[in-house]
């Protein structure tokens, strides 16, 4: 993990700029990128403008032109159908899983880097790496069995417990790669000052790892917020629905009321888009650093 890529807005070294000026325009890549941008944005645009149309309006106006008289009726419908409860459930599940997951992953990552001479820790690290290859789908039946045996079926905790576990491998990988980049001398000087490993972890590694922590936090939160299989299998009553499940329920309930469905999709996506707007730079640079090469 090289923290090579500078923040996305830096416009490059003079060298690279000169290179691009000398070259002809990349028509193929450019054309493709713009066409794909159009394709990416079209459904999003459509769903947003549709959510502000009345049902009658929807059938009689051009689907790609926003309605002249905006209505919030659809949003009212969605909120009246227990949206707030589902939203709250998703918040509880996401925070309840992500915070402990990142905390224990950070501790494990610190231990793995600091104790890299220990055979035991190397073994644990190996298991975490192998864990990256275990798809949640493949183990969902035993997870279901464990949850029943714990008498937690149909609770939010049932979703939280396995969500934590499946956030651990990637979090440990990313965080340990970051901690490994902390200069050894800093650890040494902490030790000279008589700091314990516990103290060193919180006072030295934690602040230095903050960008990676934010990346991992947002990345996992996104995955858990959007998670579908665990809530589907581990809960059944409407009171325990999280947002993705609620969406499918809305779809069944609203039937051909497409504007109401559009409003439910828009409303459930809004919080993540806001989160993205806040943490975008961290997430992007973290991901490119993590997957780049």
């Amino acid at each position: 993990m090289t923290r090579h890529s500078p923040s996305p807005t830096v416009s490059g070294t003079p060298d690279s700029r000169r290179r691009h000026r000398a070259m002809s325009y990349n028509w193929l890549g450019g054309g493709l990128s713009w066409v794909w941008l159009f394709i990416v944005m079209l459904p999003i645009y459509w769903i947003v403008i549709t959510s502000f149309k009345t049902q009658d309006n929807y059938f009689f106006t051009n689907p790609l032109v926003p309605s002249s008289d905006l209505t919030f009726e659809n949003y009212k419908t969605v909120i009246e159908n227990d949206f707030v409860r589902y939203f709250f459930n998703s918040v509880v599940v996401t925070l309840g899983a992500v915070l402990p997951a990142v905390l224990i992953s950070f501790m494990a990552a610190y231990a793995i880097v600091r104790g890299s001479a220990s055979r035991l820790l190397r073994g644990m690290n190996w298991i975490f790496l192998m864990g990256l290859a275990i798809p949640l789908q493949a183990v969902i039946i035993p997870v279901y069995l464990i949850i029943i045996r714990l008498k937690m079926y149909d609770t939010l905790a049932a979703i939280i417990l396995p969500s934590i576990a499946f956030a651990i491998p990637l979090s440990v990988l990313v965080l340990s790669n970051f901690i490994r980049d902390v200069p050894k001398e800093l650890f040494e000087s902490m030790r000279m000052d008589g700091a314990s490993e516990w103290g060193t972890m919180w006072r030295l590694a934690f602040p230095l790892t903050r960008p990676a922590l934010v990346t991992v936090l947002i990345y996992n939160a996104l995955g858990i917020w959007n998670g579908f299989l665990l809530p589907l299998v581990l809960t059944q009553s409407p009171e325990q629905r999280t947002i993705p499940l609620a969406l499918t329920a809305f779809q069944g309930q609203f039937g051909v009321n497409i504007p109401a469905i559009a409003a439910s999709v828009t409303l459930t996506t809004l919080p993540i888009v806001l989160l993205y707007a806040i943490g975008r730079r961290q997430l992007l640079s973290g991901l490119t650093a993590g997957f780049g090469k």
Partner: protein
Amino acid sequence: MTTIAPPVVRTKEPTRSSGGRSGSVVWMALPAFLWFIAFGIVPLLGVLWLSFTTWNGIGEIVPSGLDSWKATLQDPKLPHAIWVTFVIMALSWAVQTPMSILIGVFIAARKRYREFLAVLFFIPLLLSSAAIAITYKSLLDPSFGLGSGLGIEALNQDWLGNSTLAMATLIFIVSWQFIPFHSLIYQGAVRQIPTSMYEAAQIDGAGRWKQFWSITLPQLKYTIITSSTLMVVGSLTFFDLIYVLTAGGPGDATRALALLMYQQGFQANLMGPASAIAVILVLVGLGLSLLLRRLGGRSDDSQLEGA
């Protein structure tokens, strides 16, 4: 992940702090480790055990030898689901890879508006598969969707009601969802290619196309393998999207392995055969990642770190 300290320090260095004191940090790894064992490794072993039992999801779990495996392997639904999974995997890879590389190279240039493109490209990754499936289901609805609204005949197909069209639509939506992500991976990788390589090529008079083939593409080799591994192994686990979009239909046209497993287990209450399918899923995934890793010709450690 290129330049860092070697992943594992094998030499004994008794004077270093980590040597004598590692005992004091081991416990810090325990919470994560035990949690992952409980909900990751135990279920992995559990699914193998369950594949040799009969269980309806509620009652007693009865060991039944090879019954579940026999039932699964003789079921004609299995080869069909494997075929569907393979088609989804191959086609979505073939569509996504060239497009992601071309877009990635384009947005790698450090220009403001291309950075902006990268920002917008991230949006599909924020949406849940459920939201995406529902959006497309409404958008493509033959009576209420975009096609009928615009009155364009060619757009007004029964996109999800015809076997071939449904598969094509699925591939398209998968590409819609993931091309931006892979483009961003390639963007990051292209930016790591040393500028000096291009300068040398330019002095030699190589044009953009020549440079792409002789510098960019070879330099992206490991990224292509990483990205392909993510695509291929990821496509094994497409569940949410298919479940909401087509529920495997029309008929069984889009019933991939993960969906078949869910239906066997949680709808037909045949947990034994469903576990057998899950084991197959794990084995196929593992086999494919090993195969792709071999193609990459890298050692275990570094490839895993790259994944």
